[in-house]
């Protein structure tokens, strides 16, 4: 295994860094100390110079985000750490918190100092019972040791951090829905603009950063921006913690420099495809990013290269599917996730994910019709970028890329009236038709609205 520089996972496996003392012993809170010795503007400038880009999916430059926060509104400013990690395939935030909880707290404290905030929130995914407890303990320690509270590390800077546990909705990872939820409202996204930097939590300027992003911040302050830019690629500096799962020998989190080829991640770190089988498909950044194939083995894992290959780096959550995996079933499951997690606010997402999910259920069960594929292909552009928030785009990605790369698998399901991988389907009588009641055979043709409306 060729080890590159590890930054935020350097101490993984060493349980001594979980408590405060151990974290300090390996240099913890040095970054915060450095930051407090600087002016907030200098801190922002340093993070800007590092080129750090948000690891939550969109890749927006972190320092630039911080610099958007106005200081003259007469309102308080807030930092919100997004720890609602729920994207299928994504699991690096959880491990970052479990293995070194003070690292993210230090990042939060630096961000808060940079935007002159005295109150920060951690929005913790509801299902994360254990990581939430680890954070709770770390917060207690941080207060005990004067890292948080009235005088942060003995300075005049005051900071309180509130841990808020979500209630189990994927949509609350979307930043405006997260803010609604944090305020006690339904977790549904809000109209932007105003952007959270201007009117976020309680209509006040707010910075929202992902756990992984914040973990990098102490290291940038400790080692300097130019150190950070020396790692990774020019436009995607630093490292990235890739969560690789699915059909690989060694699933897990691997911190590698941005721009590392997927082949290196898969073969050198994850031990290759499980059982030496052939790679069929992989997602570069969670289920919401379009799938790539074995043709894309040499794509470099950075924001630009993945985009050029027709997908998105997203959260860097790589899910690997091999030659034995049914792509219809894979797409069906991913879409079902989004249909389940759609918040219901906007029509295309609420109804569209439901519809697509139903059609895929039917195809997989061997009840597909030849016209279903043109239908799905027509629904893709009708859904893509039409939702209130990006959740819908994530739901469409697997459908679009599945049809693009694996259309013949869909066709076989329809022709054979069964799943070629499992053998179950209407042709064999093994699969149940999708519940509730099966579509009639032959399926009723579309009813002209004019007949119904008179």
């Amino acid at each position, binding site marked *: 295994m060729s080890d590159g520089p590890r930054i935020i996972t350097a101490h993984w496996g060493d349980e001594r860094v979980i408590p405060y003392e151990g974290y300090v012993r390996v240099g913890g809170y040095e970054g915060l100390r450095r930051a407090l010795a600087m002016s907030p503007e200098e801190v922002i400038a340093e993070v800007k110079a590092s080129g750090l880009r948000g690891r939550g999916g969109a890749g927006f430059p972190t320092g630039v985000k911080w610099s958007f926060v106005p200081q003259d509104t007469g309102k308080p400013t807030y930092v919100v750490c997004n720890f609602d990690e729920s994207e299928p395939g994504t699991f690096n935030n959880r491990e970052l918190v479990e293995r070194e909880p003070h690292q993210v707290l230090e990042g939060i404290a630096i961000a808060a100092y940079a935007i002159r905030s005295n109150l920060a929130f951690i929005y913790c995914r509801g299902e994360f019972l254990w990581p939430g407890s680890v954070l709770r303990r770390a917060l207690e320690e941080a207060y005990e040791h004067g890292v948080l509270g009235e005088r942060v590390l003995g300075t005049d800077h005051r900071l309180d951090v509130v841990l808020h546990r979500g209630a189990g909705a994927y949509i609350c990872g979307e930043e405006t829905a997260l803010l609604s939820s944090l305020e006690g409202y339904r977790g549904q996204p809000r109209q932007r603009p105003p952007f959270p930097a201007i009117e976020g939590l309680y209509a006040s300027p707010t910075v929202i950063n992902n756990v992984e992003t914040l973990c990098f911040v102490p290291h940038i302050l400790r080692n300097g921006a130019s150190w950070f830019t020396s790692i990774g690629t020019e436009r995607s500096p630093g490292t990235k913690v890739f969560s690789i799962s699915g059909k690989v020998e060694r699933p897990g989190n691997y911190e590698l420099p941005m721009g590392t080829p997927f082949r290196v991640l898969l073969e050198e770190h994850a031990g290759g495809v499980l059982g030496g089988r052939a790679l069929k498909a992989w997602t570069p950044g969670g289920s919401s990013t379009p799938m790539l194939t074995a043709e894309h083995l040499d794509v470099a894992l950075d924001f630009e290269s993945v985009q050029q290959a027709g997908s998105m780096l997203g959260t860097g959550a790589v899910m690997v599917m091999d030659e034995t995996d049914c792509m219809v079933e894979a797409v069906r499951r991913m879409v079902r996730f989004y249909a389940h*997690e759609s918040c*219901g606010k906007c*029509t295309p997402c609420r*109804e569209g994910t439901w*519809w697509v999910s139903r059609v895929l259920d*039917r195809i997989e069960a061997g009840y597909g019709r030849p016209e279903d594929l043109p239908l799905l292909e027509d629904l893709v552009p*009708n859904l893509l970028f039409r939702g209130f928030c990006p959740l819908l785009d994530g739901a469409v990605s697997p459908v679009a890329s599945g049809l693009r790369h694996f259309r013949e698998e869909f066709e076989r399901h329809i022709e054979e009236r069964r799943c070629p991988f499992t053998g179950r389907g209407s042709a064999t009588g093994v699969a149940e038709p999708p519940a509730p009641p099966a*579509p009639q055979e032959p399926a009723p043709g579309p009813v002209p*609205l004019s007949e119904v409306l008179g």
Partner: protein
Amino acid sequence: MSREPVTLTIDGREITVPAGTLVIRAAERLGIEIPRFCDHPFLAPAGACRQCYVEIEGQAKLVTSCTTRVAPDMAVRTQVTSELVRRAQAANLEFLLLNHPLDCPVCDRGGECPLQDQALAFGPGESRYIEPKRTYRKPIPLSPLVNLDRERCVLCARCTRFCDEISGDRFIELYDRGAGERVSIAAGEDFRSPFSGNTIQICPVGALTATPYRFVARPFDLSSTDSTCAHCAAGCAIRVDVRRGKVVRVLARDDVEVNDAWICDKGRFAFAAPDRPERVTTPLVRARGLEPASFQEVLGEIAARCRGGRVGILVGGRLADEDAYALSKLARTVLGTNDLDHRRAFHGGRAELLAAARPMSVTYRDVEEAAAILVVGLDAEQELPILHLRIRKAARRGARVFVLHARRTRLHDLGEHLLVRPGHEAFALERIREALAAGGDGPEARIAAALAEAGERAVVLAGPRLAEHPLAADVALGLAERVGARFALCARRAGDRGALRAGVHPTLLPGGRRVTDDVERGQVEAVWGPIPAEPGRDAMGILRAAAGRELDVLYLVGVDPLRDLPDPALARRALANAGYTVIQGLELGELEPYADAFLPAAAAAERDGRVTTWEGRPRPLRAARAPLGLSRPDWEIFVGLAEALGADLGLGSLEAIRAEAEPLLAPREVPVRSSAWGAAGPPQWIEERVLFTYPLLVDEGRLLEGATELKAALEEEPFAEIHREDAEALGVADGGWVRVRTSAGDAVVRARVGETVAPGAVFVPFNQPGLPVAELLAGRFTVGVHLEPAAEPAAEEVA
């Protein structure tokens, strides 16, 4: 927000609109209709339904025009010029119809349904959806008035946003998520909002339906008339829908100057009273009993009694402006009396004089744009519901709202209440006035500071409770003048302000001219001819005179003194002792044994005319159907009576009345003088416990007869609201029974104990089922009261 104009193009056409305008609104100005469901001009943008996509040059994605604000040189393409937009809108309609039941043939909305219309205009024509549809149990009654059909619902959230943003009555909320998202209400709770009907009207599909209208009519079977709601002085623009001669539905019309797009549930659902069997639609005269006769006969008989006799006239709150003017002139010039009054309570101060002389001292817009609002002696939600909504709107826009009242009102969530005992308002107002100079940190000082800071953007709204003390309204007026605030004395009933303006008043002639002032009376005499110079008797004075056999004719126009006035015992004596009693109205009710003649009047929905809002704004009444039977508009009856007496009022048409009245009702300056004009002395500090009462929005009032579902939804059982301190002192428990005894009578009602009334005050709603509170009153709407815990009464005792 800057209001600089912005120029942009929509479908190649240039338009200039104020900055901040939404693209969908700008398109409307060009006559381009972009389909929409969640968008509503009076609700905040939601961007939820995604129907109103447009293309903006330079932007990669389509945007929703209901959330996008105009920008200079923006180039917008709607479905008119963009194939992409057309396809997107069609696709969205296909999505909306996936799970829609398409039961249009049995849906109340069919024929006037935005989903139906827009699917036809912009939709794909057919659906490719073959999967089973989502189903729900339906309909779900949210209240006795409102039913929810979740299958038809498109989840636009207009209803929930209305309850959140406009009424503040958050009974319904979206629940669950994704395709399972649905409008919901807490188990066991009713949608108990007096504005609930608005959600039905703004529902863009048939998901919310009104119980009284369910399956009653198809829209193309209705004949519709634009009119004004005459239930209160809010003056809401309404549309009255008639099917086969019966009113079956009332809808709000948009009017930004008055009701925005809303009406209250009383205005919407209380329309059945004129069709009740108790309605009398022929003139009656007493022979052996009350017997039908022609108008000519009855008017002739009445004229014979009036000729040379002493006549006293009591008037209710529902006369149209023209009726009031004709009556005012009839009384003075033909019947020769100033003994006429429309009021339930005495004002008689300078505030009343100003209200008579100067309309529009405060408008809805002034309220909306105010920086500080002081509401005194008014329960706006119950008495002028649409004014209440405008005060809420102002509060949402940043106005500071204060309520000085004996009882907490529904403004409590966004305004500060200062609870004072009824009758003590004047003292509290004085303390506010003192705090203007002295400062301090109590509620009075906060009110003073807010009013002073707002200056001319401050509004003082004085309500009916101040009528209990002659000086209270004048003190409120004095406070307003001191800080430069706008001031209005808010009339509650639809006919109140018009009657006051027209001089249906013992001492005021049209335009607030005083009978006793020779110059002012002369101005009216120049038009009318001679007018008696003696001031007349007020309502209670007229009853006393009748009771004392001083009146030959007691003429009751749209009023029931047994129910409406605060001394039924006196009213009974008056009716018994009056020489001759004439009833004019829709029905006789309990007055039947006393009536010597009955004149059938047309209901508000049956005649043309005008009513005046609490602001003083004239609003048109239009006949939605012909008067039932022989009934006629009141003014015609007055003109007929004058003719029977050999006089010509010169008021042969509504136009003639308006032409004559207009110069007399032109706004006048009223000389500033001390409040000594009032007959009574300064208010008294009251030590004893006081019962006070006023009508809630939905009660046993005559115009609410027949509105079964409305009453089921909103009417309350009688109760006595008592402050916790008093209840503890007396040993009365919340929900327990309490005996309420006054000098006039006693009753046993359920106690509501809390901190929602001022200590020392007991509130009993005026006219609730089974408890005619008037029987406890002794000439005013407040009365000293003795309370004691009581056993649960036997059924007949409650009734």
